[in-house]
């Protein structure tokens, strides 16, 4: 989506793919992305998804302290307040990406529809779509760094792909989650 979007809007990319092709790929990838999310919701484990949503939604005092101390820990290290299955940064990231994606879909629709009816062509639409792209790219780059490279967090990738994590690691980074987990879940 980023590449075809750049081909549609940044002049140094505009010669790489011709406009109809770039546009078709851009539109269809957005539809496939939305359809994928819809299918996961329809066919996936909805109870588990609802639990995940609730975990992302709820922030407690530890989460507040976690967020407040995050810049300092990044610079100087130190111990973080105990966290649940997701730490406050992960929850905030998920919420921001969700909100930005909705905004991208609305502005993307307006850009598409504004070509059909110029009443819906607003000067601000493309500015929001572009800033949304910039912020999303920063969040996604941060997400990839923390998931793949950062030593303290990259073990979570195992959880995402294989479904289990090392208990000592979980106790250190997600203590409240381990406390709540039933004993049967702990020793694999």
């Amino acid at each position, binding site marked *: 989506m980023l590449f075809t979007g750049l081909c549609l809007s940044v002049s140094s990319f505009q010669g790489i793919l011709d406009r109809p092709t770039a546009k078709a790929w851009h539109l269809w990838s957005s539809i496939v992305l939305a359809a994928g999310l819809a299918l996961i919701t329809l066919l996936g484990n909805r109870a588990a998804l609802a639990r995940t949503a609730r*975990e992302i939604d709820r922030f407690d005092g530890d989460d507040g302290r976690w967020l407040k101390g995050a810049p300092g820990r990044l610079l100087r290290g130190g111990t973080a307040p105990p966290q649940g299955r997701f730490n406050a940064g992960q929850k905030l990231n998920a919420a921001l990406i969700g909100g930005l994606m909705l905004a991208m879909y609305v502005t993307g629709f307006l850009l598409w529809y504004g070509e059909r009816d110029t009443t819906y062509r607003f000067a601000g639409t493309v500015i929001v779509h572009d800033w949304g792209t910039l912020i999303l790219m920063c969040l996604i780059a941060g997400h990839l760094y923390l998931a793949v490279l950062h030593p303290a967090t990259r073990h979570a990738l195992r959880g995402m792909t294989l479904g289990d994590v090392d208990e000592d690691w979980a106790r250190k980074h997600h203590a409240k989650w381990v406390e709540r987990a039933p004993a049967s879940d702990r020793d694999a």
Partner: protein
Amino acid sequence: MERPTPTPRSGIPFGRAALLGTFAAGLGGIAVAPAVSRFLSNAVPAAPGGLGDVLPGLGGGWRIYSVQSPLPRFDPATFELRITGLVEKPQRLRWNDVAALPGVHQTSDFHCVTGWSVDNVKWEGIRPQTIIDLVRPKPAAKFVTLQSLETPYVDQISLDQFREPNAMLARGQDGKPLTRSHGAPLRLVLPSMYGYKNVKWVRELRFDAAAAPGYWEQRGYDVDAWVGGSNGFGQ
């Protein structure tokens, strides 16, 4: 049977607030972004290659597209506008001659195919009819090809499109001479069509009998770039 890990019901619903707040900021941004953009572009000096070129929306609504770097530089001492092709009286006009041609003022909206628009742009320039009277196209002339100082940018419109009532060869914008990044000294303004037909840095007008695709048309963009009626819609 696997028992799910219980989830906390305590805490505040900050996640949904952040999600909805971000979404609302995006929607509100559609309304306020142009004003913020105007404010910031006044605060941030517009230097080519500066912050305004990197961060979207800092150009007062404008985005400057070019196919060559650096942008063409206008020199009044050496500039020459050629009007050639199928005409009775071909012309080579120095800048003084171009500046002396009668001009008109108009306010029109500018639309780019990539989705941005600038409303109520105040242009000053020469009506195509003035050019037509000057060179007298032959009956075989059906198209006007506009060659830019920026090579290899070229575009073509039909003679009828050249005669659109609010078409002009603009010399001034918003009360000042055209700036370098907006196509100094001359650009075509054709508000009914997307910006890529509005050739900047015009150095030659050629009256032709045959159609030939312009720079972007060779790259998949529509020849007749009507705003709201081209490039994926209305054909």
